């Protein structure tokens, strides 16, 4: 059941582990940019304590000795760029990564999809930089409110839940569906959570929030016999008798894939590598 790499942990001298993986690195140069620089938000630049720093020299910049927190920010930024470049997607505010290839084969794809993803953090512990990786299911809704109306859900039932829609600049906005109106055109009256204002939008741009409870509710309204909550429990190892071992194994799989597809991170004269042995806990 376990690969030889994974199996070694079961016969290892230690038996307690965390989902943290050491990063070994060769730190390259880091430059503090002059305040007049025009390249503040480029891919090579980080922001730290009111200043901009880049691994690439430019006119007016000064080489500095980077603090560990600066190294962490630089590595995080380059990790995200690399992960996107090799085909992963990132849900930024939640530190969640997934790939369209890791879709889980389930019915009702017109309504939702589930992907095998993971959550990550770069953390500093005992003056070392580590990557924390935790398997995480990613749920996406594929249906707009208009599609649900076309599937014969009573529009009166399409209200009182959270939704998402794209704003003017393509930015995704979270909101709350106050009501769905079907007249000549299907419209949604929504409250924008960010600005807290009410807007009326075409129903084809409004999508239900990707939450299992809500999707289950919609499936019930559609008369589709599928227990998404139970499936989510199963896929999250909640019902497994070896839940933690399953999660540990999955974590190692993800880390090995990252080692293969993403690391080493090379930029400027920096090189970052990922150890695939998890941190040991001594009690």
């Amino acid at each position, binding site marked *: 059941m376990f690969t030889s790499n994974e199996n070694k*942990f*079961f016969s290892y001298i*230690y*038996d*307690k*582990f*965390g*989902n*943290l993986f*050491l990063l*070994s*690195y*060769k730190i390259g140069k880091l430059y503090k940019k002059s305040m007049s620089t025009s390249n503040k938000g480029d891919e090579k630049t980080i922001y730290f304590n009111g200043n901009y720093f880049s691994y690439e020299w430019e006119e007016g910049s000064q080489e500095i000795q980077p603090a560990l927190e600066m190294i962490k920010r630089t590595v995080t930024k380059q990790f995200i760029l690399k992960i996107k470049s090799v085909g992963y997607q990132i849900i930024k505010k939640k*530190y969640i990564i997934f790939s369209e290839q890791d879709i889980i084969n389930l019915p009702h794809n017109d309504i939702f999809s589930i992907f095998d993803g993971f*959550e*990550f*953090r770069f953390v500093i*512990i*005992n003056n*070392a930089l*580590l990557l*924390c*990786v*935790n398997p*995480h299911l990613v749920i996406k809704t594929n249906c707009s409110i208009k599609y649900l109306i076309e599937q014969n859900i009573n529009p009166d039932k399409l209200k*009182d*839940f*959270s939704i998402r829609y794209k704003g003017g600049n393509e930015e995704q906005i979270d909101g*709350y569906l*106050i009501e769905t109106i079907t007249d000549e055109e299907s419209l949604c009256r929504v*409250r924008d*959570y960010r600005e*807290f*204002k009410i807007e009326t939008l075409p129903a084809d741009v409004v999508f239900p929030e990707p*939450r299992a*409870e*809500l999707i289950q*509710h919609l499936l019930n309204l559609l008369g589709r016999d599928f227990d998404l909550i139970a499936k989510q429990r199963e896929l*999250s*190892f*909640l*019902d*497994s*008798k*070896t*839940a*933690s*071992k*399953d*999660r*540990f194994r999955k*974590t190692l799989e993800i880390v090995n894939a990252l080692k293969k597809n993403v690391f080493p991170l090379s930029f400027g004269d920096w090189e970052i*590598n990922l150890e695939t042995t998890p*941190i*040991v*806990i*001594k*009690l």
Partner: protein
Amino acid sequence: MSGKEIFLTGNKIENEPYLLFDKADSSAVHQQPYWGLRRFGPYDKSISKIRLAIISPKTEIGMVRNLIEELNKGTTIMPGGMPQFFRCNIDVIDEITIESIDTNEYEKAGISFVNKYNPKNIDVVLAYVPKTSRYFSNTPYYRLKAILASHGFSSQMITEWTFKNIKWSYLNLASAIFSKAGGIPWVLEGEMKNVDMILGISISNFVSYKNRAGSRPRYIGYVNVFDNHGGWMFMEGTATLYEKSRSADQLKELLTKAIDRFKAKKKFLPKNIALHYYKRFGKEEIEATRKILNQLIGEYSVAFISINDSHPFRLFDLKIDDGSFPRGWYVYLNQNEVLLSTTGFTPIATKRMGTPKLLHIRVKQYPKEFINIDEVVWQVFSLTKIDWATVTPLIREPVTLQFSREISYLTAAISEQDWQAIVRPEINVILNTKPWFI
């Protein structure tokens, strides 16, 4: 740096804390609520009768009646029923039946009930409602609870789910009803070290953020106050609805109320104070708290204890059958920061679910350290035993956070008017001595 070996160290709590089941008998102790209640009854034995009203659909009233009868008479899991486990009986004062399970029907029944009764004459309202997800706010559960609470009534909701697992539901239900009637089922046997007062604080919570009519969100805060035996003392909420996230003003209102009432009840000013919060304390919040404590107490020590579970950290013990990191074991991330497992392997509970979601505990202390990190872990761990809504031995969160979470579900769903009614002095004086929100 390359090839560096790195490890984390940890510690373990070997035994579950003992719980006390009699105010007057210090030998009435057990580690598990179930056995403690079964042998000794509740900590507070002064309640002999609980006056209960029922609100239920006509179709379910028979089941609800049976439930009460069994609670009084006893069951295989709860032999001797309420008289044995809580030293009291449930007396049904009234039954209100409704025709359907529509939210409107429940609202009508709730309004007619609060117009008919004085909350001083009814201890708890037991309502049968359809099972709905907490995700939705316009449900019989939230609407009825809000109407009852805003008129000073504690309520206990039951659903078809209660009856599906009825054998084990009895005792949880009995404990919740008993505590909502003002009883204290159990407390910690020993005092938690170096602390007089523990506050489970929650600030900047939206009120009815989903469907409120106004143009801007409003925020409120609340605090649950516990003594050093983990006994819940009271809950206070902000009477003001704040614009934007004015956390310092919310803290001022809450801390002033909490310390005044603590002093009135305990007859002394707390000197060592622990604040539990599910988020990280911000600089502004710490400064505001210290300023208020300077004014109210003068000489004091305060620990800001952030207890967070929204993080990706996980720990594993491959020696355990399921690989879970055992309950009570913790790992130091640094001097003031640990990861604590509360739902991993434990000999007191065989049923576990999933990988333990660890508690990430971070502590900041002022003016200097007065409690060490191991004592903080013991404090948090002990408080996982004090949720009176359940007798389950395996509770993940300390009650300080659990109670805050329950209130936040409610406040997100109820209206500003409901909240303002709940914290009105004449209602507050009835409600805040009972954990009506659990």
